[in-house]
């Protein structure tokens, strides 16, 4: 199985702050994903990456950017955090038969 590690489990930030969410996977796989999860809305795809420095927008990219400088690391960036970005953020790596393996999640609160 792919092991995915998210660096921060809980964060509290102020409106307007820049926020970095870090994710590392331990397998040499190209595809990585960032989702957010909100009650009643399920998981929604923000961005994904299929190789180093390659990225594609998901369904809700507004207000977010990503960085992938190394194959194992995929970062989500909130340039100027807003209260509507309070959410659970989930990073995933793709396994060999198409399944996604998720990290433990990062719970972000924006005040």
């Amino acid at each position, binding site marked *: 199985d792919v092991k995915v590690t998210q660096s921060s489990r809980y964060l509290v930030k102020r409106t307007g702050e820049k926020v970095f969410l870090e994710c590392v996977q331990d397998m040499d796989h190209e595809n990585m994903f960032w989702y957010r999860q909100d009650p009643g809305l399920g998981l929604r795809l923000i961005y994904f990456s299929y190789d180093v420095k390659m990225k594609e927008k998901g369904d809700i990219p507004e207000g977010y950017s990503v960085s992938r400088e190394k194959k194992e690391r995929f970062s989500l960036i909130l340039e100027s955090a807003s209260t509507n970005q309070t959410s659970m953020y*989930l990073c995933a790596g793709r396994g060999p*038969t*198409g399944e*996604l393996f998720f990290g*433990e*999640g990062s719970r972000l609160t924006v005040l």
Partner: protein
Amino acid sequence: EDQVTQSPEALRLQEGESSSLNCSYTVSGLRGLFWYRQDPGKGPEFLFTLYSAGEEKEKERLKATLTKKESFLHITAPKPEDSATYLCAVRGTTDSWGKLQFGAGTQVVVTP
């Protein structure tokens, strides 16, 4: 656009009381249907992948089945440790990257 609908939203079971969760999907062509378990405050844990109608997968008290329009997750003689939210997701043949479309989940509570 791929769509996934899960029902019921919530399910309360007595220990030992078997039941089924439903996942209905609309996709242009199915490349895979995935089941996950999620405990509160944690990331989803992968359970099964189903690829074609008629396929079944089992793990302990869980059994997943697939038809052309829906999937069922059967929980046989559940125990309190089976309490979790169960998520269903699909990947369509039009996707080249491995993106999954998720349903909103079914929250299962099993009481002793």
